[in-house]
């Protein structure tokens, strides 16, 4: 992972000569921090004009965000406030039913209303536990924080590195479908002031991709080809040995430094159907998958989860409670958890969702 991108990143409005200003990103390498009583405290120096920061942490224990303290000593974010049916960030949740992670990322502020960022010394307190959430002392947390200074949070040019796994880049039809999907994705983002700045790479990682996890080397290798601050999208044949997933993000939000979950994975086979040939409709769905998964990586939750019993933390995405109502009220949203063809394009973003994306450090 190279650090060259830490120079200025110019953001330009699509289709015009209006420049939204220069966004700047800098990196803070934290010294190895030893956990005391299950907490490791990382200090983040925020200067005047800084707009958000992204902590990328890893270690040997199960890691999660415990709380964030602002320069006044007040708790700005606490996991205990987010134990209900609304979710602000997955940084609080290191385990699912199958496994736990030993790395995570947290972006602050998350929503527009969580900002602006006050200058001074912030503290990000990381919980170090075992998989049963027993506190562990003595573990070492390694972290890099990226700080963004963005004078215009209404426009963003998002750098994305699209990486083909071994052999995938040699498949002309898949490459054409991916490039077509990227063009459609560009159109999904444009109305919201988001410009896609993509480039393409190849990697020798196996095209049978694993689900992103702390033990996965494929995303680590792919993200090593990305610049710091660039979102990695790894295109493989399938995920987890199955075609059950179109794509998956390495975190909500995701890390922007080299790591085992630093990116998004997409499997092309599930997206091309039983004939393994891409139609125009399938390319549009692949575009939606890419934009959806990168949306997760930028910090967006599903507005409503697939069970219709849990929601994101945004006030402008409806809290619906059943399939028919949810499809009616929020089914056209890019982050809706189901692909539903008979309700029209699923490409909408709410103002609150755009605010989350703009706050993400990877959206300069």
């Amino acid at each position, binding site marked *: 992972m190279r650090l060259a991108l830490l120079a200025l990143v110019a953001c330009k409005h699509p289709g015009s000569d209006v420049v939204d200003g220069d966004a700047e990103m800098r990196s803070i390498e934290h010294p190895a921090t030893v956990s005391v009583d299950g907490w490791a405290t990382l200090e983040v120096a925020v200067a005047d004009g800084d707009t958000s920061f992204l902590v990328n942490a890893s270690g040997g224990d199960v890691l999660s965000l415990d709380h964030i303290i602002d320069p006044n000593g007040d708790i700005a974010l606490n996991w205990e406030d987010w134990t209900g049916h609304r979710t602000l960030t997955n940084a609080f949740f290191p385990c699912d039913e199958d496994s736990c992670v030993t790395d995570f990322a947290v972006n602050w502020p998350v929503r527009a209303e969580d900002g602006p960022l006050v200058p001074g010394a912030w503290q990000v307190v990381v919980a170090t536990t075992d998989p049963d959430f027993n506190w562990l002392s003595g573990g070492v947390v390694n972290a890099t924080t990226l700080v963004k200074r963005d004078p215009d949070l209404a426009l963003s040019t998002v750098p994305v590195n699209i990486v083909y796994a071994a052999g995938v880049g040699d498949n002309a039809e898949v490459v054409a479908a991916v490039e077509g999907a990227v063009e459609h994705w560009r159109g999904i983002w444009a109305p919201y002031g988001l410009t896609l700045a993509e480039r393409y790479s190849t990697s020798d990682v196996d095209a049978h991709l694993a689900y992103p996890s702390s033990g996965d080397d494929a995303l680590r290798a792919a993200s090593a080809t990305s610049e710091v601050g660039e979102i990695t999208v790894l295109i493989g*044949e*399938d995920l987890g*040995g*199955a*075609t*059950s*997933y*179109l*794509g*998956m*993000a390495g975190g909500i939000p995701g890390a922007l430094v080299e790591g085992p979950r630093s990116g998004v994975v997409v499997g092309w*086979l*599930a*997206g*091309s*159907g*039983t*004939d*393994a*040939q891409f*139609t125009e*409709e*399938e390319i549009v*769905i692949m575009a*939606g*998958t890419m934009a*959806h*998964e990168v949306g*997760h990586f930028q910090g967006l939750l599903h507005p409503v989860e*697939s069970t219709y019993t849990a929601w994101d933390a945004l006030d402008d995405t409806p809290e619906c409670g059943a*399939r028919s109502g949810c499809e009616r009220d929020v089914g056209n949203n890019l982050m*809706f*958890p*189901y*692909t*539903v*063809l008979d309700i029209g394009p699923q490409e909408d973003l709410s103002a609150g969702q755009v605010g989350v994306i703009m706050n993400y450090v990877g959206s300069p």
Partner: protein
Amino acid sequence: MIGLLFALACHPAVEAEPVAAAVGEAFVPTDVQADMIRRLSMRDGAQPCAEVEAGSVDAASDLQVIVQRVELPPVVPMRAAECLIAKGDVAEGELIRWMSGEDTRGLAMLLADRIDTLQAPLAQRVVASGLAGPHAEVVRARVLKSAAPELRALAGGSL
């Protein structure tokens, strides 16, 4: 109930009848199939096959209809095929159609990746059909990774 579950679990793979595709007719799913299609349509998650099948009294038939008739979202028939393979409830003729049909390359790839889940004699016949068909190249590459030496040998690998 336990007896029913046992009976379903032990249903032999080769007894299920393939569902005839009404080519050219617009496909209108039943309410049960529509619900299964929705459950198979998650963007970045997968409901367990048991949940997908929960509302169906003949899940194998419904899944086969979905494989044969649903094109979009493309992940739906692929997940349905995975559930069928996991159930071990696909007729041999249907497996051979997946392996050797002109327009079933994706199914051939999926099935070849899971060839070790089939019983040996059936797997050998299915592989043979794939190696003789239009998707021989992608089938061979996958079968060469099989854990079964006799299948690898069919694909030109060593025993």
